[in-house]
């Protein structure tokens, strides 16, 4: 374990580390733009310069191996001079159009400009102009004037997502990030992880086309959550409008909408990445919602529905439950506690891979498109669904059940979050919450348990499945009320 000194203070380092890694690990600040912990070292932005004591020049910390007794200054006058110069070089041809840039407020370049430069441009030359709205793929818009050519996006598509979709075209200050193959956007379109480059772009060059000019980040707040898109259960941040910035005039849905989803670094699950399906959580969760309990298709008060369900359960001798693999650990436990003894339970895949969806790959995406199948099966077993001839009640929880395959004439209690024709076909129907409307946990395919928090309030009329299960508990078997 070599010992190195940063600004005179000793730190233990590991042989394979670079000075930058040691510094970050111990909370010593060294700025960086092109360096990313999960990508190869490019060493091109030159902002991470440091000075080895006794040398009259600067070197980049991201590519400096540690060695016993190495003494490095991270904030010497020479380092400061070069950092400032680098910021001046970077902003030389940068349009500084922060006022209309979606990245403003979370842009590394803005932060570093304030920290290391703080001056207006010292150049008198006109700026190099470049494409402002280049369609890099269906999802991603590129502003070449803001691009600082750190090549993070290029390296991501080569080293992480392996689509090799991007490259650099032209030379010098006319370099442009472009599709690697001609002007073919398909490689990036087909990259199931492409939107990560929007996050890792240190500036506002890569923009989500869907969100372009739609939101300002300072009106948003991030709530830690878990993506339900597959059994990986990626840690995510769900961004939604801050309550204090609640809109009173426009469509009220703005106040509860999932504006965007970003990865929340969890080394045990997803690292700093998520797939594009996770980004599109709103498409999944903001489908039209069921918001009224139903009795044979007729809206009823929740209590009336509960009473009807209790009656059905009370009458049943051989009830069967199809358990949702989207239920949280807590909901599954509640079902088990409340009805586990009374029902024969089968775990159901609420979702199967959709047409054209990546089924599985060796980065994150898992073939099981449900977040909590592992816990569900640990509790209720792996047996395949089979209705005994004497089945006299079916409780269906969640999507993915073909009602046509349920035993004929047997009453159904149905819990579902979304509007669907089946809701009205059930004897009793409960409109349930989605996981962004409550707290809970999912346990992913590898057994990692992750918490999610309530991001927004439940819509009126919607009930948590857990509450339904508890209310249905302790109905004795075979006793007519």
């Amino acid at each position: 374990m070599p010992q190195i000194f940063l600004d005179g203070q000793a730190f233990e380092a590991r042989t394979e580390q670079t000075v930058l890694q040691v510094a970050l690990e111990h909370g010593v600040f060294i700025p960086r733009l092109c360096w990313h912990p999960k990508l190869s070292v490019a060493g091109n932005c030159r902002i991470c310069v440091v000075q080895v004591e006794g040398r009259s020049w600067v070197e980049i910390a991201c590519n400096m191996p540690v060695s016993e007794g190495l003494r490095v200054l991270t904030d010497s006058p020479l380092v400061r001079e070069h950092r400032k110069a680098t910021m001046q070089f970077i902003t030389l041809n940068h349009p500084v159009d922060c006022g209309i840039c979606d990245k403003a407020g979370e842009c590394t370049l803005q932060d570093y400009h304030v920290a290391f430069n703080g001056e207006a441009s010292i150049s008198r030359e006109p700026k190099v102009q470049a494409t402002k709205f280049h369609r890099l793929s269906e999802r991603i818009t590129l502003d070449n004037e803001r691009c600082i050519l750190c090549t993070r996006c290029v390296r991501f598509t080569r080293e992480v997502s392996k689509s090799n979709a991007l490259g650099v075209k032209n030379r010098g200050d006319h370099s442009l990030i472009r599709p690697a193959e001609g002007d073919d956007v398909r490689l990036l379109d087909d990259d199931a992880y492409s939107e990560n480059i929007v996050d890792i772009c240190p500036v506002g060059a890569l923009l989500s086309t869907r969100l372009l000019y739609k939101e300002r980040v300072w009106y948003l707040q991030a709530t830690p959550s878990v993506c339900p898109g597959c059994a990986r259960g990626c840690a995510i941040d769900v961004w939604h409008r801050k309550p204090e910035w609640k809109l009173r005039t426009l469509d009220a849905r703005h106040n509860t909408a999932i504006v965007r989803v970003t990865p929340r670094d969890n080394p045990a699950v997803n690292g700093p990445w998520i797939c594009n399906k996770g980004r599109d959580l709103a498409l999944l969760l903001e489908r039209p919602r069921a918001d009224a309990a139903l009795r044979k298709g007729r809206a009823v008060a929740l209590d009336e529905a509960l009473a009807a369900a209790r009656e059905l359960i009370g009458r049943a001798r051989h009830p069967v439950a199809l358990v949702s693999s989207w239920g949280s650990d807590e909901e599954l436990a509640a079902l088990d506690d409340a009805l586990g003894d009374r029902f024969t339970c089968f775990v159901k895949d609420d979702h199967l891979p959709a047409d054209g969806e990546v089924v599985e790959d060796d980065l994150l995406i898992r073939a099981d498109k449900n977040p909590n199948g592992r816990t569900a099966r640990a509790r209720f077993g792996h047996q395949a669904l089979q209705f005994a001839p004497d089945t006299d009640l079916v409780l269906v929880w969640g999507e993915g059940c073909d009602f046509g395959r349920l035993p004929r004439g047997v009453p159904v209690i149905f819990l579902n979050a979304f509007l669907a024709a089946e809701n009205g076909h059930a004897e009793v129907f409960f409109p349930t919450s989605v996981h962004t409307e409550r707290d809970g946990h999912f346990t992913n395919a590898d057994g990692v348990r992750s918490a999610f928090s309530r991001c927004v309030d439940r819509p009126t009329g919607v009930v948590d499945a857990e509450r339904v299960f508890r209310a249905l508990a302790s109905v004795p078997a075979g006793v007519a009320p």
Partner: protein
Amino acid sequence: MAELRERDAKILMTFPVTASSHLLAEARARGAYAALDKALRTMTPQQVAKEVLASGLQGRGGAAFPTGRKWAVIQYDDGQPHYLCANADEGEPGTFKDRWILENSPHQLVESMLIAAYALQVRHAFVYMRGEFSAPFRRLQGALDEARAAGLVGENILGTGFGCDIMIYRGAGSYVCGEASALLSSIEGKRGYPRNRPPRLTVKGLYQQPTVVNNVETLSNIAWIVQHGAEAFKAVGTPKHPGTRLISISGHIARPGVYEIEVGYRWRQLIYDDCGGMQHGAALKCVIPGGISTKVLTGAEIETLNLDPAEVEPAGSSMGSGGMVAIAEGTCMVRLLQVMLRFYHHESCGQCTPCREGMGWLHRLIDRIVDGQGRLDDLDMMARISRLQDGNTICGMGDAAGYATLGILAKYRHEFEHWIREGRSMYEGNLECRRSS
């Protein structure tokens, strides 16, 4: 300065060039491939490498790095594949000396590369050749075909069991691809971006394997060194900088061309005797010693200097790549620098911030001065930009452009000030040397 012994030894340009002097038969008649025979039959790889180290040979590509020390990093018997690349990119403006070897003495390079490949235990060697070179390409390819037919390249060379193939890879017109690591990326089929060091190329080079990149001229000395021994080589030139240098001289010189000089040769003698002085009898204003990335020296400065790094470097410049440009009195240095900065701006690969942005900045700035819109403090800004690029870029190009700018600004600032004040050149913007009427 004490007159030294006559320095007229030749290592490379030892024969009259004729229509057939590049062919194998004539090269063999001059003794080609004897050194290869000697190395393969009588020396171990280690002995060859030791001989090169002892010779004190230094790189002729610009940085004058000791060749033997570069080779010593390679463990010839470590069982991994090693690669050797001859750098025939010859991109440094003013430099065209490797071209002389490629066109007129290709077997000297082939033989030397085979010896180097033996010393480094290389099975596949490459020549990275400037894309614009077509005659040199045909000559070298012809030489390789001849050598292969004669059992000198390929499997089992000279029946010794040693095998080595040499492939020519042609560049696509990028200056930066002459930088050793960019060159390797280019061979790998990637964009010609220079790489960060560490790792050194001798540790991780082509395809991440230990690789030696040497200039064509550097390598071409190897056969001679093996044939005559390190001691004989050290007897040529000066003890600190042994050997000869090929100088390609151009500009306003009466007889431009490639000259082989022994290190320590008198500069005056090269310019005034060998090259016949300046065109139209003009006076010598200044000299760019070794490619435009080396700092300019005035006519007065070179008057007493010998062509020896030990003298050129203390004078504030370097012998660089041997691409010498002689510039006549009456040439406008503002325009000259403008041309140079246009080149650097055009050639910056754009990878690292200071060079990518700084080159364009300098270029636009000097364009503005030439347009008559300059201000005096622009000159300080140019110096500042140059200084801040220095030492903070991935490859040497950022530094090089800075040196060039600082060199000209330091010595000819008054020409820039004149242009800024008067709105026009002190020398009518001349870049040509005109016959005085």
